[in-house]
């Protein structure tokens, strides 16, 4: 059991039983250990089974990918692959690997490892698989030689590169050695790693404390001075935000994610506390069931959209949010600004008058994530906003899996569902596909929009090689989406973390999911 792993050497670890808050960080020897805290556990570490913000954050520490996103605005930079080419017809991609990458157990990271990893991801058909499964058939990844990998796509897909930072490379030898029967090592990789990244596991308890130690001879090298390099990082799960904030204040935690806007406002005023504030990429929207119930009527949807109090969204975030001025998030290539609905009770009443229920008198269900304070407040705003239309709102909090379970089919989907959809890449195809019929069953398709024209345009633009034509089609798609109003478009909230001032190297990357932080460049500055 996990307890046995806890016995790993605690050399010179000063027990944090010293309650002195000035003693802010953990140490090993004379190196610091940084402590990060968030609310989400990491039940499955396997990079080909699952991804969400906490899981990805850990996976990035332990594994590497062919390329990486860096900077704001996000750009793809070489990582395991030092360069790459595309064929004329856009169907073949060839990557050339660096020569010095190696796994934690010493095995070299070669093209075979890359091929195995991609095939494994496609075969398991979970997690990230959806990103490439339509375009890569099993067997279409080839290790041409020890340092070259070739991908042959089903059809040209310009956005192919944008997904690669999310596909990690595992060590085939270790995985096969630890596989149980036919499971391809899934059981083993749930709590163990077979990676090449800057950290390796020291102690792992996916529900509470995950302790990673730094790999001093990491093949890529470390971005900070060797003397400053941390001994490791710890991710501590604390489900409630109040204790997390208290732990940050007491110095038990160095970086905290997921604090409420009110908490952050308080922390900003304190000395000895830094609060970051960067524009985020994940739009928040209230998805309306376009197939069933009163929301199936486009006029009804427009009425809702014009009754909603958009300014309240900004107030709830204390000004740290931007209203969406177009259906695509700001990071997406080819996005345009459109004329979005704003609160206008007159207009709302006019739209409502065109529906079968001009006097309202109905109750709609609003589904949101349990325990998410901001979403709950948005629900209350919605309730108050729809009252003048004589529409009642029934606020229902559900945990994420139940919420998307319900949203999977138009029969069970609620009238209104609150969702953040992080665009994991800059690819316009991903975002546009969210409004196509193929999105049904995924959490970004809870609106169940079925529009033949959008479907046609999405399919066309996905494979279009002519940039100008492509962008024009996406512009048309965006305008049509606004007309159909399948969702109430909300805001993109700023991404904010609270940290102690001695934490350096923090870099914001808008494509990171919710609370995810790149832990690799972080270090604690000496006094």
């Amino acid at each position, binding site marked *: 059991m996990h307890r046995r792993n806890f016995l790993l050497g605690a050399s010179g670890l000063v027990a*944090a039983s010293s309650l002195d808050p000035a003693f802010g960080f953990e140490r090993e020897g004379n190196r610091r250990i940084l402590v990060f805290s968030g609310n989400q556990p990491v039940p499955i570490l396997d990079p080909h089974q699952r991804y969400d913000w906490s899981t990805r954050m850990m996976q990035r520490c332990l594994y590497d990918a062919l390329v990486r996103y860096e900077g704001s605005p996000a750009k793809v930079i070489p990582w395991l692959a030092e360069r790459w080419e595309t064929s004329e017809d856009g169907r073949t991609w060839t990557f050339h690997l660096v020569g010095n990458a190696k796994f934690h157990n010493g095995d070299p990271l070669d093209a075979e490892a890359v091929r195995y990893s991609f095939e494994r991801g496609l075969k398991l058909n979970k997690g990230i698989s959806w990103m490439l499964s339509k375009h890569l058939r099993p067997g279409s990844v080839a290790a041409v030689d020890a340092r070259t990998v070739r991908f042959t796509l089903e059809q040209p897909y310009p956005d192919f590169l944008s997904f690669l930072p999310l596909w990690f490379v595992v060590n085939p030898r270790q995985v096969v050695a630890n596989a149980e029967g036919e499971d391809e090592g899934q059981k083993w990789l749930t709590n163990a790693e077979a990676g090449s990244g800057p950290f390796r596991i020291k102690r792992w308890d996916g529900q509470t404390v995950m302790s990673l130690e730094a790999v001093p001879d990491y093949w890529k090298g470390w971005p900070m001075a060797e003397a400053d390099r941390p001994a490791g990082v710890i991710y501590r799960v604390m489900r409630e935000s109040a204790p997390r904030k208290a732990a940050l204040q007491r110095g038990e935690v160095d970086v905290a994610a997921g604090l409420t806007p009110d908490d952050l406002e308080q922390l900003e005023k304190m000395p000895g506390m830094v609060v970051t504030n960067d524009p985020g990429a994940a739009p928040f929207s209230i998805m309306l069931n376009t197939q069933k119930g009163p929301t199936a009527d486009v006029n009804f949807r427009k009425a809702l959209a014009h009754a909603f109090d958009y300014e309240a969204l900004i107030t709830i975030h204390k000004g740290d949010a931007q209203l969406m001025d177009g259906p695509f998030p700001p990071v997406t290539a080819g996005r345009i600004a459109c004329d979005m609905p704003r609160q206008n009770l007159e207009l709302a009443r006019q739209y409502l008058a065109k529906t079968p229920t001009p006097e309202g008198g109905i109750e709609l269900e609003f589904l949101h994530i349990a325990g998410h304070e901001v979403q709950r407040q948005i629900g209350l705003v919605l309730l108050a906003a729809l009252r003048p239309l004589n529409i009642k709102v029934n606020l229902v909090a559900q945990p994420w899996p139940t919420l998307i379970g319900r949203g999977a089919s138009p029969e069970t989907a609620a009238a209104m569902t609150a969702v953040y959809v992080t665009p994991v890449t800059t690819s316009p195809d991903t975002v546009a596909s969210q409004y196509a019929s193929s999105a049904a069953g995924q959490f970004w398709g809870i609106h169940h929009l079925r529009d033949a024209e959008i479907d046609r345009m999405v399919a066309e633009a996905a494979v279009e090689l002519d940039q100008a034509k492509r962008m024009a089609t996406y512009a048309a798609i965006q305008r049509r989406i606004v007309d159909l109003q399948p969702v109430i478009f909300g805001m993109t909230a700023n991404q904010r973390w609270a940290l102690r001032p001695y934490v350096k190297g923090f870099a914001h990357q808008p494509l990171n999911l919710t609370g995810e932080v790149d832990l690799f460049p972080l270090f604690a500055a000496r006094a």
Partner: protein
Amino acid sequence: MLRLLARRIAYVALMLGGLVLITFVISNVTPADPAALAAGPDATPDMVATLRQEYGLDRPLPEQFVRYVGDLLHFRLGRSIQSGNEVTDDLARYLPATLELVLLAMGFACVVGIPLGVLSAVRRHSWFDHAIRVLAVSGVALPAFWIALLLQLVLAVWMGWLPTGGQLSIAADPPPVVTGMVLLDALLAGEWATVSDAAAHAVMPAFVLSLPCLASVLRVNRAEMIEVLGSDHVTAARAHGVAPGRVVGLLALKNAMLPTMAMIGLRFGWMLGSTVLVETVFDWPGLGLYAVSSAIASDFKPVMGVTLCIGLLFMLANLLVDLAYGWLDPRTRGA
């Protein structure tokens, strides 16, 4: 004595059977589709159908019940969606933490409650007595989660004297596992730094948990002592010149033992229930926190597992109390 034991054990077995039936009934009243819940968020409809077949959720109810009992006998309680582990593994992991808390709380209630109750009876009608009576009454009425929050606010955040939550500090290494109870294991291993760390973390949760039990113990001991002190044989002993202290100590205390134990047996149940609240506030990694986070996530199997586990625990505790009662009070032997 053996007959008593045998009868009691048979009784517990019967109760356990009833509990299993109840949990089965509760499991099948769920409005959510159990197969979809078990399959998880990324499941396609085929995956859900496969799982439905695999778990036998499309079979008639009696057959499902037989299967359920069979699984229980093999200690198969299902898998938690949230943690991904077998529920039995999770239970084994979290049970010691809850036990530790409950034992500490009960110990505190007895060690503090008995003498204070006795003292309150001896000094009846004094201000001390009145203060004890107020504590006895309010201890039961205080909402555990509220007093927990307030204590956390005052002692942990404002004063900084105690940690805000958890069982140990973040990067502290747990002691070698003997019982699973961190404080005990640290004591056994002689790791004094860990002992003080664990103790500091356990103070507030154990105290809050002990309050209702403390209140009851105070009341019972006080009442019993008052009765006994006024009884004939005590008056006789006093008249014969036995020193008052010995009177209290020997005669009265022994008589107060029985009802106190019965009260503790009763209160144990409420205490087990309160762990749900206290563990949530103090982030204590026990069964209560496990049950709550699973319930919120509609993760069903763990909640059932915890119900069975706590039910069993309670039944065993009652069995122990019964046996101890029978052993201590010869009148009830052979009952």
